[in-house]
């Protein structure tokens, strides 16, 4: 298997965004994942979200761990720097990258094995620290790349394709993210682009730790009857709490929604998330209520999707560390090296 370049024939009629880029400019190389893999749909949603947000592709950095899911950064944003790191450790690499240059958009891509098994600790701590990032878990409940073993998000009692029963409790990553203080928490489904794209857009503009758990069926190892991460199961049990429309700060707000069913969330940068509430009792500003609601619906066998929690005024790691506004990787010698005179003073104090 080698690198497959996508033909770069620009269709004259391809629409361009405000920066003059077409969707093609946000794509990567041809995917080598299985045909029908949920991960490919998520890649497409990322392409669309970045295109629609008019993001300069080179101002995004995409980082991942190891797994089929972690391979996807090759398949989107070909003009962005990417880093396919080691299994379960994307969060630390992303944290370091973010510390070096706070001005880029950081897209962390991971799998359920990558983030809920081997990298559970790193996932938790990056969330705790409030790293300004979009953390996407492509959640299929299995290890795809190593051929179908259970991951830590596999439901207790679910059966693998080979008929083995999972007897361990499953990790609910959304629950963990809420508990550890993520300031943007959402769940979606790879097959629901209408919900996923605006969620990604809102998460990208969110200036804190944004976590999106995307259920993404593995057609090779986890799409059979009885699997709660199969296309059919999720379609049937998807309980969407809200549908959203996302407006970046510069977009004109034109559409009107019926009052009562609509709630608006204005983010720190002025962008507006408009929630079309499906579940009346759902309030995405209340972390505790969100946790309770999730638990209740889950007990009823439903997969709650939508924007589950958002803090419109998030804090992030840089704010907590009180770092200068200039990216650290752009500081020059004058700002970094205190010089011979300062050292002489230090010497004098050490005699």
């Amino acid at each position, binding site marked *: 298997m080698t690198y497959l370049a996508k033909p770069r024939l620009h269709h004259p009629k391809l629409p361009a965004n405000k920066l003059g880029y077409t969707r093609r400019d946000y794509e990567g190389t041809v995917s080598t994942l299985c045909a029908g893999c949920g991960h490919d749909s998520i890649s497409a949603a990322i392409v669309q979200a970045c295109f629609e947000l008019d993001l300069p592709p080179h101002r995004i950095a995409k980082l991942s761990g190891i797994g089929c899911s972690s391979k996807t950064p090759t398949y989107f944003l070909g003009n962005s720097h990417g880093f396919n790191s080691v299994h379960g450790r994307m969060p630390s690499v992303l944290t370091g990258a973010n510390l070096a240059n706070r001005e880029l958009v950081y897209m962390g891509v991971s799998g359920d094995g990558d983030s809920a098994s081997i990298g559970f600790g790193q996932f938790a701590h990056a969330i705790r620290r409030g790293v300004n990032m979009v953390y996407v878990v492509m959640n299929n409940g299995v290890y795809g790349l190593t051929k179908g073993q259970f991951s830590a998000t596999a439901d207790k009692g679910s059966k693998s394709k080979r008929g083995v029963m999972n007897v361990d409790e499953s990790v609910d990553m959304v629950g963990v993210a809420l508990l550890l203080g993520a300031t943007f928490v959402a769940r979606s489904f790879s097959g629901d682009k209408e919900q996923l794209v605006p969620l990604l857009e809102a998460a990208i503009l969110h200036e804190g730790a944004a976590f999106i758990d995307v259920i993404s069926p593995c057609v090779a190892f986890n799409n059979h009857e009885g699997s709660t991460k199969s296309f059919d199961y999720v379609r049937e049990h998807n309980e969407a709490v809200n549908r959203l429309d996302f407006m970046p700060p510069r977009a004109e707000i034109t559409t009107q929604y019926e009052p009562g069913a609509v709630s608006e969330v204005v983010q720190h940068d002025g962008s507006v998330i408009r929630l079309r509430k499906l579940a009346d009792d759902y309030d995405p500003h209340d972390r505790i209520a969100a946790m309770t609601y999730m638990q209740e619906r889950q007990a009823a066998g439903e997969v709650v999707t939508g924007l589950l929690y958002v803090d419109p005024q998030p804090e992030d790691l840089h704010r907590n560390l009180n770092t200068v506004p200039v990216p650290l990787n752009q500081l020059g010698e004058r700002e970094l090296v205190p010089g011979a005179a300062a050292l*002489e003073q230090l010497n004098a104090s050490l005699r």
Partner: protein
Amino acid sequence: MSQPTTKASVNDFVVKFANVNGSGSASANNLFAKSILRMGIPVACRNIFPSNIQGLPTWYEVRVSEAGWLGRRGGVDLMVAMNPQTWDKDVASIDSGGYLFYDSSKPLPASKFRDDVTVIGMPITEICNKAYTDARQRQLFKNILYIGALSALLGIDPIEVEKLIGEEFRAKEKLIVPNVKAFLLGRDWAVANLADVDMRLKLERSGKVGDRIFIDGNSAAALGAIYGGATVCAWYPITPSTSVAEAYARYCKKLRTDPETGKARYAIVQAEDELASIGIVIGAGWNGARAFTCTSGPGISLMQEFLGLAYFAEIPSVVMNVQRGGPSTGMPTRTQQADILACAYASHGDTKHVLLFPQDPHESFEMSATAFDLADRLQTPVFLMLDLDIGMNDWVTQPLTWDDSRHLDRGKVMTREELDAGKEFGRYLDVDNDGIPYRTYPGTHPTRGAYFTRGTTKDRYARYSEEGPIYVDNMQRLLQKFETAKALVPRPVRTDAERQTQFGVIFFGSTAPAMAEALEGLREQDIHVNTLRLRAFPFDNDVDDFIADHAQVFVIEQNRDGQMRMLLVNECGVDPTKLISVLNYDGTPITARFITREIAEKVGVLKPIPLKKKVAR
């Protein structure tokens, strides 16, 4: 060799304090050493402490040396025995003719003493109980009291002690007077009661310290990171490396805070473990910031997978390894040089890494700053190989120096302008034929210079490939890059004996001061050796030449297996029988006496028969 005995001496002896951890002795003992230093007499201090916060034995050894020997000599001339738990061992360790100073408040049977040692008793507890009512004061001032007595016995200038107390408590002024009082209480008692002790160890003002400073290697390395332009530090607490991060934080606050906004030109993250620490360093290095982590053996073990990634994906990163005794948790508060191989070949697959071996705090500063230049220039991890002895002890060392005309070498980074001008970019293209490719920082250019970083195999344009020849091509280039490194790392230092000799000695790191003194000891026995102090791995040709120039080469190390010797055999292709290990690995810093004895014995055995005699036979 005859048993060492304590001789009458001015400014040349060893004092050892045996204390209980957490009893407040550390600052008093430090006061003792520093006051001698202020009298212009070089001292070398070593803390031998347990992995414990309170209660276990701890020792503090002060080598006083007019001649300027800064290593451990070995042996003890004056033992200040303040710990009943270790009494027997402490008393036994005194050189014949030496002195035992102890708290005589409670009588001890005669069997607890030695005939060949002068015993000096002072009822410290009794005096303290009389002078103080507060329990805490009774305990704390015991230490100051014995410093007072020692000052009278040895001839420490009380003015220096009082000045130091003033400096120490500058921020808590009301503590100055009571401390000075306690010091004088002890001193006056000694003047009145110990006048007839035949004290043959004396201190006299000298001018041998010069402009040297008193600093520990970890602080110096942290300062080196600041001068080397490091902005990101990620770490996880582990003795003996913790104080690197703490010093970096302290000095950054002072030297790296934007004076106008009060904002930080640095970021420090106490990570959840060492995997995260090195991950953060690699992420920051990839994104163009200078980053480092500090750790010790167990942390190095945890970082293995990531170190291979950094090597293979070619990401600048600096790892400060303050070595302690391994394996496993080993001797967490004792010193060793036992991670040489673990660092030189860290990670799975074929890897080799750049190592730097500072000999003292001065070089720790210098090499720490250099490590960041090397990491950027070579686009690879660079290890600063400190150890507990250098890292956690205060050393008398040359002042730290910085040349304002020195610039940070950011290595081969292609800029937006160069990309605009149409310069060809391939992340792993060897343009200059030195094995070092160009890189771009993320976010540089809208359409050019982006690439994908991965730990899997790739071609010269960073495209994924599983083709054998492409993989081999990349691995060969990495070897070539390592060859390039030889010319960039600090050169070894060769010192030849005054006389022609067939014997060579190779040493490195904290062994240096003890080695310097051992050379003197060997000369006195008419044994002459040439020496080579290694300062870095990969070894350059000077190392091969040095080994070739000698019939036998002693390799002095502080580990069990002779790890540096293995590295030399492996990398320089020398005949293993030529290299003879001299190994100290009991966790205490190597001594001059040990090196002298080992080499003298081995030379005696090895001494080649002169050619003429051989022929005559």
